[in-house]
């Protein structure tokens, strides 16, 4: 190996990236050649004095001045980006609204009645069962007797969800 070749490889050698024969010839040249030994030592000492440079001091008060801006930025970006969780929640509520409309409005309600489930619940008198079943039976009675309420609630849920999604997406 000559000095020119040594110079070509010296940085990779210094970074410890050379292996095998190439590394051995570099070692050998370094041991034999005064000039390259000096060059290599200079490279090493330059790198180490660069590494010893300390990072600058942060201007006094910088953190205090910057913190409120970061909080504002966080609040703005979080509000304008619907997460996937929220997206699925909204999708589910639309589906739910649609299902209710389907069941009550498109005749599915009659099928439910045919199953006898609702009749059975409606015959239960208060006090006979635990409280949640009483509330459910009252709720179902109201819904069965007033199908327009159901439609209204379902459409309200769907429309507000859609409007909400559109508002969220408009920020992006």
């Amino acid at each position, binding site marked *: 190996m000559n000095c020119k070749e040594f110079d070509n490889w010296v*940085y990779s050698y210094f970074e410890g990236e050379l292996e095998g024969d190439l590394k051995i010839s570099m070692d050998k040249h370094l041991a034999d050649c005064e000039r390259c030994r000096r060059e290599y030592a200079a490279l090493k000492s330059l790198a180490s004095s660069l590494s*010893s*440079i300390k990072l600058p001091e*942060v201007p006094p008060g910088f953190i205090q001045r910057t*913190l409120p801006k970061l909080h504002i930025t966080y609040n703005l*970006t979080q509000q304008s980006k619907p997460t996937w969780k929220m997206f699925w929640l909204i999708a589910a509520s639309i589906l739910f609204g649609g299902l209710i409309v389907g069941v009550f409005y498109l005749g599915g309600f009659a099928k439910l009645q045919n199953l006898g489930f609702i009749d059975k619940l409606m015959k239960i008198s208060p006090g006979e069962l635990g409280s949640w079943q009483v509330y459910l039976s009252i709720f179902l009675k109201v819904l069965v007797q007033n199908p327009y309420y159901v439609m209204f609630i379902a459409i309200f849920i769907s429309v507000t969800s859609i409007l909400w999604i559109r508002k969220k997406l408009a920020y992006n």
Partner: protein
Amino acid sequence: MEKLESRLKNGKPEAFRELLEEYSPMVFSLIDRMIFDRTIREDLAQEIFIKVIENLQSFREDSKLSTWIYTITYRHLIDHLRRTRHDPMEKTESLEPTMSLSTQDHPEPLEGQRNAMLKILDAIPEKYRIVITMRYLHERSIKDISRITDLPEGTVKVRIHRGLRLLRKKSHLMEISNEL
């Protein structure tokens, strides 16, 4: 303790302070080596941290937070350089500073050794100065530097090597001029 990145994503107030305390020295250090207009260093640092917060949701948990923040910092500064270089109003600001300019511009007096080394470093061309800053002042790996700068690893190594040679030449000149 939950990782800083997830506490940031969840908006934990103490996480923002921790982010600033941990990364400000590095951010200011890179600003100082890339942008010589000292009047805007704090504005730039704030813009960088705001960008970090704005892009939190796009940070992937499998990457390293420090590399990600470093990349945002570097790209923001490169954008700034491009913008100001195309703006003829700012043309008076020289791209490669002269040695005397960079000494006056340091806001606080620095210890001798560091000051001398930084003066020489600031006097070499930007493309060498940036990779040398990343490799030695900030101890980034060659692989990291290649990812951050979007340059092939080979190019990064060649630039570091050439930069070191230039630094060596300049430091020789400095020693000679000091002796005179």
